[in-house]
């Protein structure tokens, strides 16, 4: 029994990070209807960013998250200008492919520079032990940071001019332009914000697990699942979706072999997509 509870608590802690990883993806989807296939690669870059900042410059990995977020934002602007801006109005295949191409470049360059060896952030935070099960400090801190960042994003979107502009553009680009909102610039900012969030999520994951340059793709797939659970294009839903996914993982693993978890996840993913394409918590009308 304790085992099940411990496993579910672990799942929730990790789920918050999944949620954060997915927010960037779903934000970009919500604002410009693009599935960003560089997402996984950018998560990986976030991991390496935190790793090198901590290993070379020193200091806490949590402090390193800040410069990583800034770098992520800048990288996001560059990727937007280079590969996204020209394909926004075109069929989905084009944006899928242009972002996938950038993904290939990043992964290819990353492999050339860092090989696909495993990297480990030599870092640990004392945790809490309960009935023999330990919840590591890193997990708890990561979950906390994830929730704080998600909350900050929520406030930003609701209460700042820029956030409101992004929401306006997401709602109706033409109407927003008529109101004098420069939609091109807003789209770039939204994309960069999504990328920064992916990088931060990657940085947090690096505090939990060793990683390779290829690690991001697994989290990208998980992010798909999370966004579908929470509703594509719905950042608040992503956090809930992440927690839900973590809870599912934590809840089923004590009872079945871990190798069945992905089966459950992806079957659920497809079924939910078919039954509720707008996500479990979607409000409002259909397309």
């Amino acid at each position, binding site marked *: 029994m304790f*085992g099940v509870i411990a496993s579910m608590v672990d799942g929730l802690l990790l789920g918050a990070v999944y949620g954060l990883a997915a927010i960037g993806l779903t934000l970009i989807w919500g604002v410009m209807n693009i599935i960003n296939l560089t997402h996984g690669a950018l998560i990986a870059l976030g991991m390496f960013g935190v790793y090198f900042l901590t290993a070379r410059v020193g200091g806490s990995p949590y402090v390193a998250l800040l410069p990583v977020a800034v770098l992520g934002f800048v990288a996001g602007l560059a990727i937007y200008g280079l590969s996204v801006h020209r394909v926004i109005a075109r069929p989905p295949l084009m944006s899928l492919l242009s972002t996938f191409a950038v993904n290939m470049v990043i992964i290819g360059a990353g492999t050339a520079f860092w090989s696909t060896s*495993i990297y*480990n952030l030599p870092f*640990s935070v004392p945790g809490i032990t309960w009935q023999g099960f*330990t919840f590591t400090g890193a997990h708890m801190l990561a979950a906390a940071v994830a929730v704080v960042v998600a909350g900050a994003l929520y406030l930003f979107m609701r209460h700042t001019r820029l956030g409101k502009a992004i929401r306006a553009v997401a709602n109706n680009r033409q109407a927003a332009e008529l109101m004098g909102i420069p939609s091109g610039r807003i789209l770039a900012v939204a994309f960069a914000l999504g990328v920064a969030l992916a990088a931060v999520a990657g940085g947090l994951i690096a505090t939990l*697990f*060793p990683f*390779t340059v290829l690690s991001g793709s697994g989290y990208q797939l998980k992010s798909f699942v999370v966004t579908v659970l929470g509703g594509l294009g719905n950042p608040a839903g992503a956090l809930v979706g992440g927690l839900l996914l973590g809870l599912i993982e934590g809840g089923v693993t004590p009872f079945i072999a871990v190798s069945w978890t*992905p089966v459950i996840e992806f079957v659920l993913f497809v079924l939910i997509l078919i039954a509720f394409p707008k996500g479990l918590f979607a409000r409002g009308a259909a397309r």
Partner: protein
Amino acid sequence: MKRLWTALAFAIIALVGGGTRQTVAAADTITIGFTVSETGALNVDSLAQLHGFELWRDQVNAAGGIKVGGKGYQIRFVSYDDQSRPDRVQQLYSRLITQDNADFLFSPYSSNLVATAAIISEQYGKVMLTTGAAEEKTYQLGNKYLFQLYSPAKDYLAAAMDLMKKKDPTAKVALVYSDDGFSKAVAAAAKARAKELSQEVVMDEAYAPSTTDFGPIINKMIGAHADVMIGGGHYPDGTTLARQMFDQKAPMKFVCMLVAPDSPQFASLGDAAVGLAVPSQWEPSVTYKPQFGPDPATFGRDFQAKYGIEAGYHAAGGYAAGLILQQAIAKAGGLDQEKVTAALNATDATIFYGHVKFATDPQNHGLQLGHDMVLAQWQKKNGQLVKEVVWPDAAKTADLLYPMR
């Protein structure tokens, strides 16, 4: 219109033909072809193996090459990156044999890739020495030219079980291993051994090789009150598992894991590495008396001098593959595949790497019979992490740290 067609045909021929560059080797060289996982999940172990090959080549060439009938043949390598993926392995090995005119082959790293490559080497009757392909199944598919340097999978964790029986017969064992052919075969053998020794197995679970989060598995181990964890897989999953067990304070008395802890890089885990044991094909501290080639200490020193890191067993396996092939060529008195095969079949020798002898019955042809494994454990000495041999008693350099933490 007609012109277009002609142009198209020419373009196709040019493109295809561009790939068929014939490389002609000089008369007095022996070409050895292989693929290396320069990239992808297996690259750490595979590159270590490559270093072993290269050290052997350089030393042999410096000493005047392989001597056959008074003539010295220089060794030339041709290799490609297989990206740790089997999809292009057959293409690359075909190319090695037919275009690069490889005389002999070394295998790629890992059982899966070897099984794929072996179909090509068999087709051409080319001798292929395998290192890093421990799974028995590969040698039971009817191949005739495949020779295994490593002790087969069943030997890997049997020693750990024997050691447990001796140290702590009531310890509860959790078998947790990567869901790949090699690791599964090893775990199955370990489980059978545990049954023989009536050691209690409280958990038996495989995880996907790409797993990055072992939290749920570790919780299960703790929930099952396991004292000992035996299993693992390859380098990435092994290091992750080790670190998370440490972070989650899993109360293990003994952990023995495949492959990962053998790598010198494992020390980067710091305290999380302490106490972890690994079944090893070879350790620098072993004391075999070689019939030919360097002794273990010399090999270790030379390797350290060339690459600046300590030799692990993958590197030793690579060097040993070269050495055994060299001896067989010398004995066969030429490059004839059948004669070299016969010489390899007849091999029964001790080198720095230990005893080497291949099965010759058709059902298990090429399976390694002679070689013994050792068990090594990471221990802390004067604040430094060192890997000590703890089993068998005859070869040990330190006592087993038990319980490990």
